[in-house]
């Protein structure tokens, strides 16, 4: 049966720079997928493009791909990356320039999957009664329209497959779903029908399993974590996809990490909602139908996956400005570290009150005592070696947040004793870019797919 090998070398923008290179160099591979986009990423890229029309994409993708271009061309490995951000055309042009620098002009085709950016159409859509209601709160987008920074439709594996069909060796996508990056090659190679819901669901679940990179090969793995071998050289995941929809998750021989049924289960439940209904642009996948089997060391086989028809909506990722925040911390030492940190909190809050500063929210945590798990952590030991006093504020008024950032450091001289950890300077006031998930009818969106020779 026809089998293809799809490796994922990037779990988010900021993941290992070496992982994609290693995936290409350390063993057989047909496709390399790279996931660069998170909700916040699009708004950062939108701002970059506003300043410079040739930016607005993941620049480190271009630097990385230039390193491995000769091998990719020689071995005919195809690359699919949603590194295009809000400017896939500029990213494509940069990749073409890199190819020419490497003497590979005319030797590969570069494609784009775009049409996801609906920022410039928002007013028109709202005027025509498409409210883009927040999926969590039900509020219409008009509530925050003036604050919107970016708006992108999640396209899927279907569009990736179309672009592969036009001959692209490297695909630069805008907001394509993480799962679509891996599903696209399967639709293309196996000529799966666009209504073969079980197979589309299989490819989608394969994509979900590898979308967080090493989180399925032993990274962030709770079960038996101390015995996972050679984490420093952890292998990134590879899907061995078969025409019938079954697939095996594995990694290159000789790499570190571990792939077991138990470890894979951890990744399957990661960021899960209703397991019966994993909704993507391509299909609805049912996680309760998955059958897992350890077929050999570092090889887990998936079968039995069921799917249902896709909905007639695309999900939209909208970002908007939602005020300002700042977070800072100081460290208090033994003895009575927690008591000192608690006293510092009381003193600081009283000073903020006296200054007449009003915040939407003030949050204090005592790191080392109970910051992450709150009351579940139980009573902290009375003899802690040190405790970090961490305080954050939020306000729609930037000046109030900036004033707060000046009040923390003085505590070193005018607050409780045995205090340190202020060397990194005062906290920074940061703009909050919040996320507004919504739906849009598929009929309102026209994906733009094109391929050019480098």
């Amino acid at each position, binding site marked *: 049966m026809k089998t293809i090998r799809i490796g994922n070398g990037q779990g988010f923008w900021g993941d290992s720079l070496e992982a994609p290179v290693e995936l290409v160099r350390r063993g057989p591979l047909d496709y390399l997928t790279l996931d660069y986009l998170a909700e916040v990423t699009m708004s950062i890229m939108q701002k970059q493009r506003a300043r410079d029309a040739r930016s607005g994409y993941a620049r480190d993708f271009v630097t990385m791909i230039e390193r491995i271009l000769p091998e990719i061309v020689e071995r005919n490995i195809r690359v699919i990356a949603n590194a295009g951000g809000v400017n896939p055309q500029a990213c494509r042009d940069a990749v073409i320039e890199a190819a020419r620098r490497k003497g590979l002009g005319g030797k590969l085709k570069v494609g784009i999957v775009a049409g996801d950016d609906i920022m410039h159409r928002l007013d028109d859509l709202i005027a025509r009664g498409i409210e883009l209601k927040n999926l969590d709160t039900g509020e219409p987008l008009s509530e925050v329209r003036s604050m919107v920074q970016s708006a992108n439709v999640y396209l899927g594996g279907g569009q990736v497959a179309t672009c592969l069909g036009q001959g692209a060796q490297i695909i630069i996508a805008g907001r394509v779903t993480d799962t679509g990056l891996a599903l696209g090659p399967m639709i293309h190679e196996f000529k799966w029908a666009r209504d073969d819901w079980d197979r589309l669901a299989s490819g989608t679940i394969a994509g979900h399993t590898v979308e967080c990179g090493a989180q399925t090969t032993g990274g962030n793995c709770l079960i038996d974590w101390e015995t996972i071998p050679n984490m420093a050289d952890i292998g990134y995941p590879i899907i061995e996809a078969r025409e019938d929809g079954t697939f095996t998750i594995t990694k290159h021989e000789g790499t570190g990490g571990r792939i077991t049924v138990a470890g894979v289960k951890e990744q399957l439940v990661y960021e899960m*909602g*209703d397991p019966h209904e994993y909704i993507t642009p391509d299909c609805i996948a049912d996680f309760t139908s998955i059958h897992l089997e350890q077929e050999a060391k570092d090889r887990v086989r998936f079968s039995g996956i069921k799917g249902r028809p896709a909905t007639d909506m695309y999900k939209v990722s909208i970002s908007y400005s*939602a005020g300002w925040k700042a977070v800072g911390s100081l460290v208090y030492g033994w003895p009575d570290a927690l008591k000192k940190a608690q006293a510092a909190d009381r003193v600081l809050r009283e000073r903020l009150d006296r200054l007449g500063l009003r915040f939407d929210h003030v949050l204090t945590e005592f790191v080392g005592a109970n910051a992450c798990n709150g009351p579940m952590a139980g009573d902290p030991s009375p003899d802690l070696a040190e405790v970090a006093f961490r305080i*954050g504020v939020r306000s729609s008024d930037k000046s109030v947040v900036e004033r707060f950032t000046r009040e923390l450091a003085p505590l070193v001289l005018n607050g409780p004793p045995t205090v340190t950890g202020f060397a990194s300077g005062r906290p920074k006031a940061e703009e909050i870019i919040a996320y507004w998930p919504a739906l849009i009818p598929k009929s309102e969106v026209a994906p733009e797919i094109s391929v050019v020779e480098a």
Partner: protein
Amino acid sequence: MKVKLLHLAHARSGDKGDTANVGLIAYKPEYYAVLVERVTAERVKEHFRGICFGDVERYELPNLGALNFLLHKSLDGGGTISLRTDAQGKTYSAALLRMEIEVDDALAREVMSSKA
């Protein structure tokens, strides 16, 4: 006898906006039925008091021997709005494993001897 979930299951957690999810995975198929019976949405809501301010939903995945919990309003607004150290609920997986449930004595002895 009471045992911590830590001895019966492992877990992973993540976020979607202000909702955290915790996937709880039985170490053995026979432990799954115990989890289904004992680790109810109500008990998880009670366990996460002071952290989770919304509803808790539970989904069953018998094929994986796993339960998935959605903890609404648990991340101080979630994402970039949250001021919390753990704005993505990454440590909630292990936090759930702190929960103690009642099991029969034979099972308690078995899990306490095999897993520390």
